């Protein structure tokens, strides 16, 4: 019983962090139809952004978080402005490969600067756990989960109730019609790339608090995010959250109940991806936009 309760706690905490990691990618893909391969690198760079102040000055990653979010927003908007804005009409192939190339550059700048070693920025309190008697709640993951809930909630409220948020949703549904509403398409694209990157960065800071980081973190974060988005259904943010829940639960289950499970965990998303592609290629929630 205790095992199952602990499993449930771990699965849900992991799912929350996964949701935050993938929501941004889901947003930018749904709005611009460009799959941004630098998304994972934003997670990785933000993790280092939290690590260095912590390592050098003992700065709490949570204090660095607002600064990192702002910088990431600017970087994401800048990425769109300077690399993708003049390429919105070229085939998707080229856009994907361009962001893939940029991602490679970012990853390997990190490899060159910081080498492949594992590091972590875990403050002492994040290592503690709340003892419930029957199960433990790891504090670091709980904080991460809380942040994920707050930031995702803020995203949903912003999309639902503000003019800019409504413009983003309109653009995801119909580009020309959105332009006819007087929406500045390119500005809205930049905005969604900025928000997307900021959310990725927030998840990177959380990851640095709860697990070791390396320059190769970005690729696995990217692949997980993509798996989550496809699981949930492209273009649906609610679907993305469901996808994160499915992946989080499945990975935790494999780690808990399969011998040698933690080694297999990275393969879980891959298997789920193929399963969903065969059974229900439009995702759990149904694909909301055509790519």
């Amino acid at each position: 019983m205790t095992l199952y309760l602990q499993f449930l706690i771990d699965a849900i905490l992991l799912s929350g962090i996964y949701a935050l990691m993938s929501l941004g990618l889901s947003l930018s893909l749904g709005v611009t139809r460009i799959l941004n391969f630098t998304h994972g690198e934003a997670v990785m760079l933000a993790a280092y952004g939290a690590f260095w102040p912590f390592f050098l000055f003992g700065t709490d990653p949570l204090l660095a978080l607002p600064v990192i979010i702002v910088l990431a927003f600017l970087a994401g908007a800048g990425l769109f402005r300077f690399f993708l804005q003049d390429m919105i009409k070229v085939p998707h192939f080229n856009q994907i490969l361009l962001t893939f190339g940029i991602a490679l550059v970012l990853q390997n700048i990190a490899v060159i600067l910081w080498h492949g070693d594992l590091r972590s920025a875990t403050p002492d309190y994040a290592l503690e756990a709340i003892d419930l008697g029957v199960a433990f709640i790891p504090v670091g993951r709980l904080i991460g989960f809380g942040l994920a809930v707050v930031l995702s909630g803020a995203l949903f409220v912003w999309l639902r109730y503000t003019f800019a948020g409504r413009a983003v949703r309109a653009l995801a549904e119909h580009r020309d019609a959105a332009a006819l509403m007087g929406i500045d398409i390119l500005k809205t694209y930049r905005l969604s790339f900025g928000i997307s990157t900021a959310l990725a960065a927030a998840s990177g800071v959380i990851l640095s608090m709860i697990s070791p980081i390396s320059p190769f973190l970005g690729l696995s974060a990217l692949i997980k995010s993509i798996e989550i988005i496809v699981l949930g259904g492209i273009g649906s943010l609610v679907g993305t959250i469901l996808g994160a829940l499915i992946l989080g639960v499945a990975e935790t289950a494999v780690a808990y109940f399969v011998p040698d499970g933690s080694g297999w965990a990275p393969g879980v998303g891959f298997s789920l991806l193929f399963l969903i592609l065969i059974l229900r290629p439009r995702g759990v929630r149904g694909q909301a936009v055509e790519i």
Partner: protein
Amino acid sequence: MIKPLLSWFGPLLLAVLLAAIASTGGRATDWVFQVAVIIPLAISWNVMSGAGLLSLGQSAFWGIGYFASAIVSHASHGSFGESLLVSLAAGALTGIALAILTGRLRGVFFAIATLALSEGLRVVATMLPDFTGGAAGIYVNSALMPAQSTLMATAIGFAGVSLLASLILARSPMQLALRAMRDNEHASQMLGINPLFYRTLVAGGCGAMAAVGGCLAGWRGGYVTPEIAFDLNYAILAQIAPILGGIYTVPGPILGAAAVVVLSELTRLLLAQEGYGLLVYGLVLALAIKYMPFGIYGSLLARIRSKAARIDQSHAPAASPDWADDRSAKSDVELDVRGLSAGYGEAEVLRDVSFELKRGEVICLLGPNGAGKTTLTRALMGLLPAGGTVTFQGQSMLDRPTHERVNKGIALVPEGRQVFPNLTVEDNLLLGAYAARARSARLKKLDEIYALFPRLSERRAQQAGLMSGGEQQMLALGRAMMSEPELLILDEPSLGLAPKIIVSVFDAVKKIADTGISIVIVEQNAFAGLSIADRFYVLGRGRIVRSGDRSNIEGILSDPNSLLGISEPDQATEKAGGCVA
């Protein structure tokens, strides 16, 4: 004459390069070998991309072949030749399985699946140590190692076979089917092309090709771990080589493979530290995609073509007259369109369309299917690039983006309504007031629209996509009115609606016109359009062919055949079916 010659440029350059490298000795054989095994890898990626199968995980096939070298020789003491056959079969089967499993996936999805496949295989290889040696790796059975010269000859031979295969494919009728699939898989299906069959064929063949390349590399490497075999490096090499050389072309992958190997060896010589190699690949990939999307081969070709084109330039048409100077300064002209031309790519749909609209006037632009009606409305709104001049309230519009035109007071109700289907009715309407000119007064305007269309008020919380065509048309109209336009353009508001609904839509348009807003109705349904118009124009084959005022309209409404009489004889048949509903 030049093109067939140029298609041999690649192999020729390769031969020169190989000769040059071979003469330097030392590491040169390494270079040659690498080029030779990367060629099949690059060709396999290129052929798959050419069929619309963008692979980001070509290392999956490569890695399977790489492992085959060690597993076959080690576990079952199979020979070099047998391992090649095994890798060929395993690569083909993996490709076929991938194609079938991802049968319904296009573009991005397929790319994701390949990336996941490669990473997944790496995990599997690591977690099955009994079979693959696990993370510790496995050695190729050195007792069975062929002579280095045999290995080299086989690699060069196989590169040649791959090149030949891609050359034959490029000349075969199948190439056309693959191109159609790349362009638009749905459309290709309607032409009788079975995408699944071709996908399976292409993925199987390319999987086999890449796997054999990997197997050869495995024999030369002598040692395999999951990290080495499924190294994403090779997935990246597989993309960079064709892109750098010239994507979708036959010589591209060969040129690119040579360039990439030279590049990576130079990087290794100059910047030995980990990371620089991939950094350079990333830079090259990004720069090539952005600044040289047709690659080395493509830019060579373009240079030759531009020489040929220079001769033709004397035939270019003279620049169109500058209508801007001639602009009428009359203050009551709301919209002045002069010499408007627009189209899609090379196909010009509108040629020299001129008309004007006075403030508060309602005009109807009539035209049959294909006359360019929707092209005209899109050009007026800036959704399509256009030539000529469009002057709204004395200000030139053509160089402004769509959202600025909306903010100046032009609104379009687009063809097919284009409501935001997953948003609520109210969200759709509020989006109509997104423009700064309308945003502050949006709630007042919302009440006005609900008063005009009570139906929308009842359904304000419903998803727009769930409403009937007539209701959606009301919503599109209301949404356009939310931006407080001074000029309203309607593109076929009657399209797909029952006659009774059409009447109520045009009643609403009439009410809007009575408030003094200038209106352009673009219609195929002459009765509906003319019923509320002050003047009309007839658009045929991309230009204005006739125009008329109220007196003509009354004549037409009482005698529909008179519309046929005022159009050009060669359009009469079209109009009979199109305009007079």
